[in-house]
């Protein structure tokens, strides 16, 4: 009988290790282990333990999910932001392509006027996706690009506007202020816009993703998350921690560098991939 108990402890440590190495974070992992060890007395083996964990994680992910609001007015404006190199520009290309394939008219506003060749990069994606692009050129005012993008979209009867912004670390106050300015410019041109503020996170990022989500949310109000690079070996477990603390829905996952490599977030698939 004592033997069985010992196995359980090793097993629990193994499971905790699995959670932590999935980037779920030590606090959230401990909390999850606490919840299932309450049920552990009724559980007879590792498979049941895993299923219990999956259920707990699913309940966290489901609690923070919410359907995309269809408000029917045109254009629907999506502002895309996040730290450097996470995949914002590529994700915009993918989103634009899927909307065009659904028969929508898409316009992209090239509001990253800072990074070398950011506009050239976005132009290639717009071309591949079949979307229009509005740009003012490097070192111009990003808020003005966003504003003009919305204006052009309204005039042309565009369905969807995607606003690309420069990568920025969430700790840089002046860059966060610039982001607020871009948002204000969008709202000025179209009062309910931006309708979606999409934070892009890299699945290989560890606990810092929580800090990113917190500060971007505080600054500008994030309405959805896109998690990229899930085609690697990282599990992206940090989104579980984010969902349990902040209730921001995970909308999309990026699973590669090609234009079709975007999927709607499926909590069940995600949780199964964790184990």
């Amino acid at each position, binding site marked *: 009988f004592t033997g069985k108990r010992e196995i359980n402890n090793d097993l629990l440590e193994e499971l905790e290790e699995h959670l932590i190495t999935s*980037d779920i974070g*030590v606090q959230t992992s401990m909390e999850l282990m606490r919840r299932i060890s309450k049920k552990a007395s009724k559980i007879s083996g590792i498979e049941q333990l895993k299923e219990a964990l999956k259920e707990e994680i699913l309940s966290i992910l489901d609690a923070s999910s919410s359907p995309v609001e269809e408000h029917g007015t045109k254009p629907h404006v999506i502002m895309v932001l996040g730290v450097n190199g996470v995949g914002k520009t590529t994700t915009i290309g993918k989103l634009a392509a899927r909307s065009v394939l659904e028969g929508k008219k898409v316009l992209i506003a090239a509001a990253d006027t800072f990074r070398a060749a950011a506009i050239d*990069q976005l132009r290639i994606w717009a071309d591949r996706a079949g979307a229009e692009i509005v740009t003012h050129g490097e070192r111009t005012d990003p808020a003005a690009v966003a504003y003009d993008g919305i204006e052009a979209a309204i005039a042309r009867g565009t369905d969807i506007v995607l606003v690309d912004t420069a990568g920025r670390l969430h700790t840089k106050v002046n860059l966060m202020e610039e982001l607020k300015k871009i948002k204000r410019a969008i709202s000025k041109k179209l009062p309910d816009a931006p309708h979606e503020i999409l934070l892009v996170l*890299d699945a*290989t990022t*560890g606990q810092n993703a929580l800090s990113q989500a917190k500060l971007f949310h505080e600054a500008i109000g994030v309405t959805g998350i896109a998690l990229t690079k899930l085609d*690697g*070996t990282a599990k992206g477990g940090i989104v579980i921690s984010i969902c349990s603390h902040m209730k921001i829905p995970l909308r999309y996952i990026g699973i590669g560098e090609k234009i079709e490599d975007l999927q709607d977030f499926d909590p069940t698939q995600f949780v199964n991939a964790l184990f």
Partner: protein
Amino acid sequence: NLSDKLNSVFKKLKGHGKLTEKNIEEGLREVRMALLEADVHYAVVKKFINDIKQRALGQEVMASLTPGQQIIKIVNDELTKLMGSRHEDLSLSGPLPISIMLVGLQGSGKTTTAGKLSIFLKKTGRKPYLVPVDVYRPAAIDQLRKLGDQLSVPVFPSNPEMDPVRICREARIAAQKEGCDTLLLDTAGRLHIDEALMAELCRIRDEMQPSDILLVADAMTGQDAVNIAKSFDSALDIGGVILTKMDGDARGGAAISIKTITDKPIKFIGVGEKLNDLESFHPDRMSSRILG
């Protein structure tokens, strides 16, 4: 922060007797949490804590330090030692023109770092030559060319139809003609599990025989850092690491994971988006950042 937590754990122990197994356990539990929250890999933490415990056991509590401070001192010392106790330079030996190869995952900062390294090389009196080897990412070649123009550093006129190995070979000839002595090979970001693309890196390395191969890794990388480092190192035998985006608030525990797995030095850190934002790596500063 960790100091406060350790001090409260050891409050009752002030200044008398040895560090016992029990109070070390409690203190190290806090250190373990701090390291995991800092993104150090689970297995790396486990081994590290065990090593610390052996060292801490039976030590006399120093008169000048609280037991909490003493544990921190031991941890700090061990971490600093682990990360390499001295600064390591770029390897620049070999017949001219030499090559420095930049490799890593998508978006880690390779292209920007290539620009930064060219400034660094110029400052040391060398003549860098930038080589765009990324034929996949839209406008990657334009990106490096624009950086080269900003810095007045020559850039090989790659085009996306060329084979990456051929680009490198022709760039070496072109660099020689321009009187440049150091090629910076900016390769495409890739997954360490992409066999074809990892093989491409090996072909580039075999062709160019680089003096240094640097893994450019993001400071905010989580537990996956061990997988990434292990794969790139076993494929290429890297010379060192550049940790980018250190100007954020990521604790950077990936540095410990990478160093433990590869035993290769972190040579530089990226501290911003501007081309001047490259600094040499200081192990002691990194340790206290990771411990929080």
